[in-house]
């Protein structure tokens, strides 16, 4: 990494670290929301950018993560951490089952089956509105994450919520970075580049696609769980394909296969959405135009553009 990029990264981390003291409550909350969605995009990046499987169905795992915490609180009255763990496990389990079928397909067939799986669950959720609240959704109370000796940490405290989200996002980033640089990550990239060759070298391609699919599902589930806790709300619309589509756009704009790119792309496009929509009703036109320009001019996204301007080591 070049010195300029290092400095940029250091500045970004510092700003994120002290943001609640610099920004108003609305902006702090928005930053936390960007990070939560950023986890969804990073999860997709593992699958798409690193393993070469373009999923248009990550909303399925996002939505299941959201309902995982919602129903854990509403139906089972579980505390904070078990509910969070249950949500992630539910998403991972669903990824394990759907992935078993999906990874047997490639490219557009794979993309289509992921859309189908997520739509099936979406319509199921709309149909069972007694349980899920349908498109209107369900609201719930979030129990404290820590309550001991008179100290209580809850997401109702904006600063606690912000730092909780920041820590989780940082942890997800570091874990995913380690995974993508690991022996397993190298196999993912090999499978992405040339699946036939990977099988000739003794790798069970379907197995590694499946592992990547389940890991991505778990992280997208975590994103959904955090988003639900942040909104104290879950709705069937979280399962809708537009959520999957957003994640794809954020990832591609930021730079697929770079991990930091999807995080950046998410922040940028959500920022544009939130500020632009205040005075321009058709702000989606701008987002769409920006996405097209970036895909045409910088196929590796924003991060790819920054890196290619640096001399290669």
């Amino acid at each position, binding site marked *: 990494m070049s010195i300029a990029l290092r400095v940029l990264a250091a500045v970004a981390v510092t700003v994120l670290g002290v943001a609640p003291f610099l920004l108003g409550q609305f902006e702090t909350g928005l930053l936390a929301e960007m990070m939560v969605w950023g986890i969804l995009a990073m999860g997709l990046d593992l699958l798409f950018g690193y393993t070469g499987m373009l999923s248009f169905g990550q909303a399925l795992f996002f939505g299941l993560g959201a309902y995982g915490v919602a129903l854990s609180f509403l139906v089972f009255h579980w505390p904070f951490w078990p509910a969070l763990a249950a949500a992630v496990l539910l998403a991972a389990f669903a990824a394990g089952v759907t992935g078993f079928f999906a990874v047997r397909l490639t490219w557009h067939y794979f993309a289509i089956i992921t859309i189908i799986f997520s739509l099936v669950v979406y319509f199921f959720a709309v149909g069972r509105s007694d349980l899920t609240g349908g498109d209107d959704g369900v609201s719930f109370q979030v129990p404290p994450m820590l309550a001991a000796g008179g100290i209580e940490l809850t997401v109702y405290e904006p600063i606690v919520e912000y730092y909780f989200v920041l820590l989780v996002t940082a942890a997800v980033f570091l874990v995913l970075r*380690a*995974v993508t*640089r*690991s*022996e*397993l*990550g*190298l*196999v993912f*990239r*090999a499978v*992405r*580049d*040339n699946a*036939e*060759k*990977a*099988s*000739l*070298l*003794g*790798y*069970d*391609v379907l197995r590694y696609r499946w592992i990547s699919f389940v890991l991505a599902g778990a992280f997208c589930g975590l994103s959904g769980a955090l988003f639900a806790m942040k909104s104290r709300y879950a709705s069937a619309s979280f399962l809708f394909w537009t959520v999957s589509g957003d994640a794809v756009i954020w990832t591609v704009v930021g730079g697929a296969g770079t991990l930091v790119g999807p995080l950046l792309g998410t922040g940028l496009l959500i920022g544009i959405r939130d500020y632009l929509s205040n005075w321009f009703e058709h702000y989606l036109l701008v987002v769409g135009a920006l996405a097209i320009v970036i895909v045409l001019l910088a196929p590796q996204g924003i991060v790819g553009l920054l890196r290619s301007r640096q001399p290669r*080591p």
Partner: protein
Amino acid sequence: MTAILETRGLTKRFGGLTAVDGVDFTLPRGELRAIIGPNGAGKSTFFNLVSGFLPPTSGEVYFEGRRITGLPPHRVSRLGIARTLQVKSVFPSLTIEENVWVAAQSRQRAPHPLRPAMRAGRLRERVDELLELVGLTRLARVAAGNLAYGDLCLLEMAMALGTDPTLLLLDEPTAGMSPEETARTAATIRALSKRVAIVLVEHDMEMVLEIADTISVFHQGRLLAEGTPKEITANRAVQEAYLGAEHAEG
């Protein structure tokens, strides 16, 4: 002593076409065998059947006395059969050393989800050794997608060796090479054959006659003849098959 590779009555039909027709093939240990034959003789299909890319219609494949008929490619690879493809096949966005690392790492139990790839250690030494062997050390950090054709072939060879095979199947290793590159590759193959059994499919007759211990001739899906280079050049049926094929092609 059991043969390294043996097929019995190996047959593959595609609809009405019989690409491989009842082939009984035996490769003893430590032999460098070439498979030759006109286009469409079934050579590549034969490789596809042995390496698990295609299931045979009937017949059996044995590797070191063990039945491997119908196993998927990754299982066949794990038993010790490495194969290079006719169209050069690498991981283009990975560096040369990463390509070889992926191959060498494949013999471990399972890739670790957190332990970094390319780290120092026994595997790293093995990768460096293989790069040295094929002469690609100076290009170790270059993305494989940027390699020249001849270097790609060398990289493929290093990757095949990285899987520690006991049998190496080479599908036209010198196709498209210049005479110099062909000579260099032939020398490398000859040197390798001291360590592993090799079967190569090759069109370059000059090279085959020079380096192969024995030659199997395929014709219309059948094994037409087998013998030393001398025996094969003197074989009347082989001459006819080749002349006939050349007339048909011309």
